[in-house]
């Protein structure tokens, strides 16, 4: 599994004459977390759908690893209230064995909701349910479209931490979409800043200081730096000190 999981070269896509993506290159190694950020309409979801094979690009090539197993977490579920479906039943669509379903629910921290109707789950619980369904497929590649949407700030931190843990356990590559670099900073190895084309990419610290990024998001929203008691190397690995997940007082969340 040393070949890249996904390699996109020179991808372009138009919808009704509007260019959504042009000349996008991207590649993702196993075990790495790559985050796509960009404003609304930047083509993030379209790019994800091209990776998933749901949308055909107009130009360019998509090369997938031959043993790729994708776990996909879509942006939202709209389930009609007339459909009687519990969380367990939802998970069983991916994995018939109820014990494995329960284990997946446990791993994402929602095992106590297993018999509840899916429609009764809160935003954060629903995101975890989608994540559980994605990992049930034993993926080596997780694709997460706005995984923390509809989740409060504390919950977002926890969800990103969970995604990091899943990456470590499954040793899978992760491609995720976010429109907020602040929270995703510590959770990603690499960031691609997308606005129809790739504005800049690299380690989150580099991207956050890149003029193209600042121009796109404005200096007002320039990200705060996370005062951890350790440092990261270029791949996001901790190089000194021990991560304790404790935060300094400068952190604006708790």
């Amino acid at each position, binding site marked *: 599994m040393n070949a890249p999981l996904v390699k996109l070269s020179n991808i372009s896509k138009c919808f009704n004459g509007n260019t959504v993506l042009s000349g996008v290159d991207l590649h993702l190694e196993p075990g790495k977390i790559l985050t796509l950020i960009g404003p609304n309409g930047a083509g993030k979801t379209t790019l994800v759908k091209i990776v998933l094979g749901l949308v055909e690009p107009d130009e360019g090539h998509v090369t997938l690893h031959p043993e790729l197993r994708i776990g*996909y977490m*879509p942006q939202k579920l709209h*389930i*009609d209230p007339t459909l*009687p*479906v*519990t969380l367990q039943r939802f998970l069983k669509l991916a994995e018939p064995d109820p014990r494995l379903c329960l284990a997946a629910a446990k791993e994402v921290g929602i095992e106590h909701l297993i018999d509840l109707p899916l429609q009764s789950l809160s935003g954060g619980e629903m995101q975890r349910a989608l994540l559980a369904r994605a990992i049930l497929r034993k993926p080596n590649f997780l694709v997460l479209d706005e995984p923390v949407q509809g989740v409060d700030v504390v919950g977002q931190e926890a969800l990103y931490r969970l995604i990091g843990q899943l990456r470590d356990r499954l040793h899978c590559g992760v491609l995720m979409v976010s429109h907020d670099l602040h929270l995703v900073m510590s959770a990603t190895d690499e960031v691609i800043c997308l606005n129809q084309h790739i504005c800049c990419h690299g380690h989150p610290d580099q991207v956050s200081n890149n003029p193209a990024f600042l121009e796109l998001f404005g200096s007002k929203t320039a990200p705060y730096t996370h005062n951890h008691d350790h440092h990261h190397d270029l791949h996001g690995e901790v190089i000194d000190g021990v991560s304790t997940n404790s935060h300094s007082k400068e952190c604006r969340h708790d």
Partner: protein
Amino acid sequence: MIDVLLYATLAGLGVAAVTGPLGSFIVWRRMAYFGDTLAHSSILGVALALFLSISPTLSVIVICLILALVLVVLQQQKTLASDTLLGILSHTSLAIGLVAMALMPEVKVDLLSLLFGDLLTVNINDVITIYAISVVAILLLLKLWKPLLAMTIHEELAKVEGVPVNAVRTAFMLIIALEIAIAMKVVGVLLITALLVIPAATARRFSQTPEQMAVFASLIGCLAVILGLCASWFIDTPAGPSIVLCAGFLFLISLMKKN
């Protein structure tokens, strides 16, 4: 005289058995108007059958299926809102059918029985046709159950997980077309959607799983057929509307159950 009632009951039950699972999917997928549009187009199918002197059942299945596929293609273009598109096709196909029949003076068509069903005239051959088609429809639904359920919850997620969504969707359209072709005789073109939607909506309040809802909906549909036929027999009301009225009455009763 008694065999009239027997055939009518058998035909009604054969149709109601399919409406449970199929109607449940129509409700879950919010396709009531879609089903209505296909049902209206069956008038066009009947007109075509009269013109070509072929079996109306076959002609209705083919026309419904073609219209369903045209609808899917047009919906993907997204130039018009889905309900606008359905409104155009639904009433245009109904109108073409009615005009075409009027242009064929040599054939006498009982329009009322087409629109509202004519259950008390079914014969043994109709019953056999209904059961043959019902069995095919139910077998298809059983085979497609899991992928269809996955698609109903999230189509793109299902596709990423390997469900052949286009094939499943087409097969689902075929099942709707099959059901319309047999339900036409029982409740008529205008009331088919009622038979699909009302029992499923009634069953929702008593169901914890999708399968329960499908089975309960079939049972409720069968009960409505029996009650409607009784009403038709004893107080001489039209059979199709009586069945739908009984289904509506059962739905009202279900509202009394506390959730």
